[in-house]
């Protein structure tokens, strides 16, 4: 096994530059070449062809926020699991117990959330 040197990353940087360059070029080219027409009606949100009524910025129920933040929480948990799963053998039993502990903490929180009824939408 060889040690990687900075030069080894050169192709990666070239690819990155090409990818970014393509995106930037396309954006600039479409702005320069593409015809454009602005009008009040065009910039309204598309509401299945009828004129939109009201404002999208209305007070949201806090339940949306709770659901969203809980989703993010458990989504991040999965992200932690990826590197752990890759190095599963290297980390050995200790790593396994650590992950078990981590999941247990989360599950305790999850249990609390369910007992509190945060995920029940229709709570009266």
């Amino acid at each position, binding site marked *: 096994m060889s040690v990687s040197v900075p030069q080894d990353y050169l192709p990666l940087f070239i690819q990155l530059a090409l990818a970014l360059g393509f995106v930037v070029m396309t954006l600039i080219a479409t702005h320069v070449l593409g015809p454009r027409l602005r009008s009040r009606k065009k910039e309204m949100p598309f*509401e*299945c*062809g*009828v004129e*939109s*009524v*009201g*404002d999208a*910025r*209305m*007070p*949201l*129920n*806090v*339940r*949306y*926020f709770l659901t969203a933040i809980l989703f993010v929480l458990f989504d991040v948990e999965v992200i932690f699991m990826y590197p752990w799963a890759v190095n599963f053998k290297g980390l050995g039993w200790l790593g396994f117990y650590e992950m078990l502990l981590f999941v247990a903490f989360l599950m305790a929180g999850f249990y609390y959330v369910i007992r509190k009824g945060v995920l029940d*939408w*229709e*709570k009266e």
Partner: protein
Amino acid sequence: MTEKNTLVARTQEEALALNVPLQEENNYTTLNLGPTHPATHGIFQNILTMDGERIVSSDMTVGYIHRAFEKIAERRPFYQITTLTDRMNYCSSPINNMGWHMTVEKLLEITVPKRAQYIRVIMMELARIADHLICSSIMGVDTGAFSGFLYVMQEREKIYEIYEEMCGARLTTNMGRIGGMERDLSPTAIKKIKDLVYNSLPKVFAEFEELFDRNRIFRDRTIGVGPVSQEMAMSYGFTGPNLRAAGIDYDVRVMEPYSSYEDFEFDIPVGHNGDTYDRYKVRNAEVWESIKIVRQAIENLPEGPYYANENHYYLPPKHSVYRNMEALIYHFKIVMGEIDAPVGEVYHAVEGGNGELGFYLISDGGRTPYRLHFRRPCFIYYQAFGELIKGGTVSDAVPIMSSLNVIAGELDA
């Protein structure tokens, strides 16, 4: 941002715990489904009031393609109204055509020969197959499976080829005449029909059913979704496959047999719960029954003329128009719409793709109907849609709509 953009809490407890203001009233979200929404097949508008993901209520607007069929029908001679019926339920136009011809024949008291009746049955059943194929496969598309649609579209094209062989058109067929058919089944048509009902369609359709019937995703999204009880179905005027899915075996073909339906052996499939999955299953079972009917009709096709000998109403054959004075006169009078119909009041119903398709015709003895009313099954049962989706999620509303098989042209007339 202003105060408007803040979070609010529903209960006092939440407001204290999260330090956000308490919401004074139920602030539901309003969502606009339609008129040009990819999930609504045809043009309907539903303004849904939502509590989170649950639909609280819906406000339905229809009439976006209202074309005033009934008004046009009052100004057209009888044979020209066939073109209007095509465009009503365009997924199964031959059924509409034949239904209209039979209504006029009832008014004129014409008996159609057996052979014509059998040809009509074949065409109507093929139309039913085409209608149900679209409905079932579009349900697949709406629940996320496109391949089923591609499978059965190929078969529908074969049905269209048979239509073309019979009348030259694919979709708006304008098939048949008052008093019979305009032409006999050609040998090519017979060959194509036999090939369809014996070889290609059963094979492909069995494969299609295999793809969906026990598909986990499809079942999860349809079983128990939008159930219709028997009482609700009756009260809302459901007919056709949607009614039969609720478990009521009402079928016009059996209840009031027309066009020799009493000669054929077939079952009426019924469902149990009337949910989306049952509607799908009933439609599929009906395709198999229709295949059975077409097989019987094509095997036992009686010999004889394919039109009634009614010079006043049935266009004379072209060769005699060129040689025979009387034929020329009749031809002219029929084409110019100068045939007076007797006074009468007729209601005739056929089993359309979506249910009881009725024609209520009042004639005052003139050349055009005095009043013609179409009983459009879609129009009547679509009003239950609002109640069916109540309490469900938006993702349920989409398969419910496609399983009801609402055809905009028929709905708005």
